[in-house]
């Protein structure tokens, strides 16, 4: 039996250990704090010292102030741990130090029986992380041995055949296709215990059924975790509702907002969601978070640009030095193809925060499109100096090589980026483009597919898929893909154009005409779109609608006028057709005029034009 002085000594010792664990962890000495926490939890039972217990209980205990004075500096932990008993707090210390040292299984084991929501979150989260880590390790990645010899490998075999590339890609992808099965995998310790997402979800749901309505921080995080797990299980509806619950309880969790965004895949959904969110968040402060969310939403789904600018200005007034906001601004310019301003904004950002690598891959895209290789080279060197092993860096380097026309190297770096961050859709899409450059349609298709699997809102990937299948002459497939890309960007005339040409290839003339018409409507300066006009004319001809055909031919020809005599193939053909047409109907002067205009083009066309000219001259005289 312990006597009082010994008991006092023990309780003091306990305090010291507790404090040491907290302080060490604060200043990131994780291993030492872990030791202290383990010692703390392994201590013998001390006969209860009354002051301590009441101290730990509730923040609004009347003894709080007194005991604060008495015990000095331990304010910060207690503020966060409302309602935790002292033994629970010790357990929390141990668990958190284990988590910091990345020992997830141990952390979950010690927290096995907790009821406190925050501890429960810690437990389930560490279980999830442990599962994630183990499944990642189990997945075969054939990338690792090759990526180490990035440069040397290619100097040796500069002629890497397409087939090898394909095989490498395939093997890499077989590693990645396991990602699809990952969610059903369970991590097995071979002694009858296993963790898997459904099991964690079940435990989480059981707990939330009992406790889920109290709007505490711990519960909101539990909802967030649930949303994440549903997302992995591919049940977006449940994921969305979980995220919404979490956000209503605690709106300042930015990752939750981004996850919510990634669950939505269609424009109409985004509109509906926005409406709901506006209703829910009335508080000024939370409105700010909502505005941020609207900005990112706009990036993905377009919307009202004026509103966007308004929001952006408002937020910039509050956060003038927030690099994230500036990148949003730059990104929107990029999406509307205003590359110059986007470039300028990025320069500003770099000045503001030179070591920031997020979104720099977009900047590298801009530089690529604007064809500024030297700047791109500089950016690539700089980024690789800061951190070689980030997905953004690898993307930048890949863009650099692509600009230098070294496509194989570029592909290699894109793959590296993907190993580092498998959710980087732009890497997949760009890699697909590279394969298209290399004329490797099949590999390109694989890449685009991966891109759309991860992010079904990436219209470029769908478009790329459509194009690749078109090359392979599988028109039914490409039709579907163009439709998808069109659905995402219905105001982009290129999509409609592609769709129309697809319909044309499968002889669906009506549809094709409709699409071309739509494209025309959308184009900024429809009079100059000679390609569309010409094709429309040809289609009408096929439908034997000669009047409309003629109309469009004329429009086509007139385009030539407005561009100051800029002659292209279509105008030549149009002129020729008109000449023939007029000649048929004996309007020789017209025909003569048109035929004269045919100055460029293939020898056959010129011959024919000359013939018509002669004919007309004869007849006119």
């Amino acid at each position, binding site marked *: 039996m312990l006597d009082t002085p010994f008991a006092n000594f023990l309780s003091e010792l306990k305090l010291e250990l507790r404090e040491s664990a907290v302080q060490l962890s604060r200043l990131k000495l994780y291993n030492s704090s872990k030791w202290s926490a383990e010692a703390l939890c392994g201590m013998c039972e001390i006969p209860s010292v009354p002051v301590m217990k009441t101290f730990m209980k509730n923040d609004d205990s009347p003894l709080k102030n007194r005991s604060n004075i008495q015990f000095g500096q331990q304010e910060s932990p207690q503020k966060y741990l409302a309602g935790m008993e002292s033994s629970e707090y010790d357990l929390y210390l141990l668990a958190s130090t284990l988590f910091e040292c990345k020992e997830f299984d141990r952390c979950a084991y010690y927290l096995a029986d907790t009821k406190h929501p925050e501890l429960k979150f810690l437990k389930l989260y560490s279980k999830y992380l442990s599962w994630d880590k183990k499944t990642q390790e189990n997945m075969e990645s054939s990338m690792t041995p090759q990526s180490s010899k990035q440069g040397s490998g290619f100097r040796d075999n500069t002629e890497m055949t397409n087939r090898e590339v394909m095989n490498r890609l395939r093997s890499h992808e077989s590693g990645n*296709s396991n990602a*699809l*099965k*990952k*969610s*059903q995998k369970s991590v*097995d*310790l*071979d*002694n*009858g*215990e*296993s963790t898997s*997402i*459904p*099991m964690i979800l*079940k435990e989480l749901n059981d707990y939330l059924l009992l406790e889920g309505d109290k709007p505490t921080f711990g519960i909101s995080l539990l909802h967030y975790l649930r949303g994440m797990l549903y997302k992995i*299980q*591919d*049940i*977006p*509806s*449940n994921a*969305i*509702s979980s995220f919404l619950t979490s956000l209503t309880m605690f709106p300042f969790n930015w990752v939750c907002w981004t996850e919510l965004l990634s669950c939505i895949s*269609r*424009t*109409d*959904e985004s*509109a*509906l*969601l*926005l*409406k*709901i969110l506006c209703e829910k968040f009335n508080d000024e402060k939370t409105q700010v978070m909502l505005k941020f969310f609207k900005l990112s939403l706009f990036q993905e789904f*377009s*919307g*009202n*640009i*004026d*509103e966007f600018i308004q929001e952006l200005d408002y937020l910039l007034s509050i956060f003038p030095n927030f690099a994230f906001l500036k990148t949003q601004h730059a990104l929107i310019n990029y999406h509307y193809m205003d590359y110059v301003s986007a470039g300028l904004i990025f320069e500003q950002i770099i000045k503001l925060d030179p070591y920031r690598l997020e979104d720099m891959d977009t900047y590298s895209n801009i530089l690529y499109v604007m064809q500024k290789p030297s700047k791109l080279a500089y950016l690539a060197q700089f980024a690789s100096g800061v951190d070689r092993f980030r997905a953004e860096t690898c993307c930048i380097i890949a863009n650099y090589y692509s600009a230098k026309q070294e496509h194989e190297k570029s592909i290699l770096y894109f793959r590296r980026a993907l190993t580092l961050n498998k959710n980087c859709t732009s890497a997949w899409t760009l890699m697909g483009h590279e394969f298209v450059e290399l004329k490797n349609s099949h590999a390109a298709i694989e890449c685009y*597919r991966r891109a759309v*699997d991860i992010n079904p809102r990436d219209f470029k990937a769908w478009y790329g898929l459509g194009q690749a299948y078109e090359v392979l002459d599988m028109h*039914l*497939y490409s*039709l*579907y893909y163009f*439709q998808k890309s*069109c*659905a995402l960007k*219905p*105001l982009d005339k290129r999509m409609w154009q592609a769709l129309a040409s697809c319909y044309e290839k*499968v002889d*669906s003339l*009506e*549809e094709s005409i*409709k*699409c071309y018409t*739509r494209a025309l409507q959308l184009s*900024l300066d429809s009079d100059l779109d000679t390609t569309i006009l010409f094709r429309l004319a040809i289609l009408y001809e096929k439908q034997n609608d000669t009047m409309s055909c003629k109309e469009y031919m004329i429009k086509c020809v007139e385009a030539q006028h407005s561009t100051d005599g800029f002659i292209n193939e279509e105008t030549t053909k149009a002129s020729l057709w008109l000449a023939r047409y007029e000649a048929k109907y004996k309007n020789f002067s017209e025909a003569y005029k048109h035929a004269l205009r045919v100055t460029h083009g293939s020898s056959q066309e010129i011959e024919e034009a000359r013939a018509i000219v002669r004919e007309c001259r004869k007849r006119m005289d």
Partner: protein
Amino acid sequence: MSRGNTPSQHNSTLAISPLVGSRSLQVPQQRNPANASSTRQWSGSHRAAQTPHHSVTYSPLVQKIQNNASLATPAPVQDHGSTAGLLASMTKNGLFGPTMPSTLRKVSIVGDIRRHSTSIDNVVGDVAGAESQIGDDRLVQDIDIAQLPAAEKLRLWRHDSLMQHQYRTAEYIGDKVYAMTGDPNDAFWLAQVYYNSGSYIRAVELLTRNNLDTSSVMCRYLTALCLIQLKKYEDALDIVGETNPFRDPLGNHVKNQDGGIKLESSMCYLRGKIFSALNNFDKAKESLKEALLVDVKNFEAFDELVSKNLLTPTEQWTFISSLDFSDLDDNEELIRSLYITKLSKYLNLDQVHSAHEFLSEEYKLDNNTDLIQSNADTLFTQCKFSDCLKLCEEALEKDEFNFSILPIYISCLYELGGKNKLFLVSHKMAENFPKHPITWFGVGAYYMCINKISEARKYFSKASILDPSFSQAWIGFAHTYAVEGEHEQAVSAYSTASRYFPGTHLPNLFLGMQYLLMGTLPLAEEYFALAYDICPYDPLLLNEMGVLYFKKNDYLKAKRYLKKAWEAIKALDSESKSWISIHTNLAHTYRKLGDNERAVKCFRLVLETTGKDADTLCALGYVYLRMNRIEKAIDSLHSSLALRPSNQAAQDLLKQALDVNLSTVLDESHPLVISSKLQEQGTGTMSKKRTANILDAHGVAKKLKHGQDSSEDEDSMDLE
């Protein structure tokens, strides 16, 4: 008992224990009224059997223990709070001094009936640890050996050496005693010595000499037992008789007086055992049941019936209600509850549960291994494998090699894939019990777990050879054939199992599954029907029957059975793989019946729970195609092909879907047009003139509801 007077079939050997005193000189004792945990007293007044020596009335079964623990008493003294159950009172003559150095000192009274229902070998002296305390004010009388007659002294000596397992002494002295007295009881004890030392044939010879086996029931019993050990089943059957020769045609139930197991009952048990060994399971069942009806204390027979699966679950429960527990007086409820906890967990779970509660409250037995085993059994039947595993480990911590828990534990580990632990367990078992069938069962399970089927088969067959009544080993053996696809062999193995274990529906179920796989549907149906008769509650069985009817294209019946299976699984709340199969099968049935909505729901439920699976996605795509939801169909088919690109069916379906897509007219109601209109409203024009357009979300939402087909995803958002 006087010379030549052997106990009747209503007695046990306690009656002729050389240490049991004469009844006639007893002082009648008071019967202690119901005191649940208290000891029970013997009323000695009307015993038919007598000890060999009337003159000496003493009971050395009473331990004379002083209040203070003396040197010789090996275990702490407990006070049972009543007058100790004296077997008989002591005469004033006899006195056992505290100086008695032999095991007789350790002999003590058994207060509780639990001790009495032990096997015959321990009956004499009722050893092993039960103590009671006799206070000074009780009827303690000490026995003085010197006052015993000569033969009696020799008997005591023989007895003690038997207890100390010094068989040569026992044989030597026992032989002398028998030669001197010629008492059949002495012959019996000598035969016991031979039995214990393993010389069964000598025991048989001794007992058959002088027609002992005809005159004394006990000798007959022992002879039969020895013959069984010698595997001479026919001869044993002759001795014991094919039917119970003692059966009272009037059905009168004579109560056992001496607290042991009636010899009649033991003989019935032997009969049952012989019939089992001769593979005549019906008769074996009958005999064993009879054994219990005669004397409910015959746990051996009960265990044989229940754990060797000789009775179907329904039969088990009807049987137990027919048993008469009144023999046990105070311990009636206790034993009845204990027996109930051993019955099949497929039905009447509430009764089992209430028995559990009774036992844990009244007798504080909830941490007892048998109760834990019963709980584990329940969980296993309900397929809650992780809980079951935890419970088994708890039990095994206390008793590492408990043979009743080990099979369940091994099966749980196998179901959960715990190869590592299986390895460890089987190694430990092999070190300590190399000849025990459970060891080889464990090893076989381990090999199955790591997929080395031929090895597994070797070990399973070894286990079943060592103990042909070990049902799990048989079924494991048959499974090895089934897993490798050798249907013929599997069928023959399962058939043997179903013959040997008529009380379990599992062999018939597996037989049905094999025939289903082989395509012979009528036979499969027959076997399923048989299994259904035995146990209609197993969700696995119901699932298989559903599949059978699906294959026969009888979709309504299939739906019925699958729904039953679904109900059963829901009630059990289990996490097993059968949940997935039931749902998938149900979804396919709905699909065939044309109930597309429900089919979709079921498929999606399966996908949500288990993640992506190529076949499920393909089927989902097919259903969507039928429902004309092209986009979803194409999506599902794409996902399916992503998982398995060589799936021909999915490819064809995809082609079809794309064709349909092509022919969808690009008119006002096409999704593309609508979404583009949406966007137009939202963005304003792209021209230089920027007009302020406010996104009319409300209007948009309305348009959504009218224009497109709503997706399931939006429903949850609406509810928000």
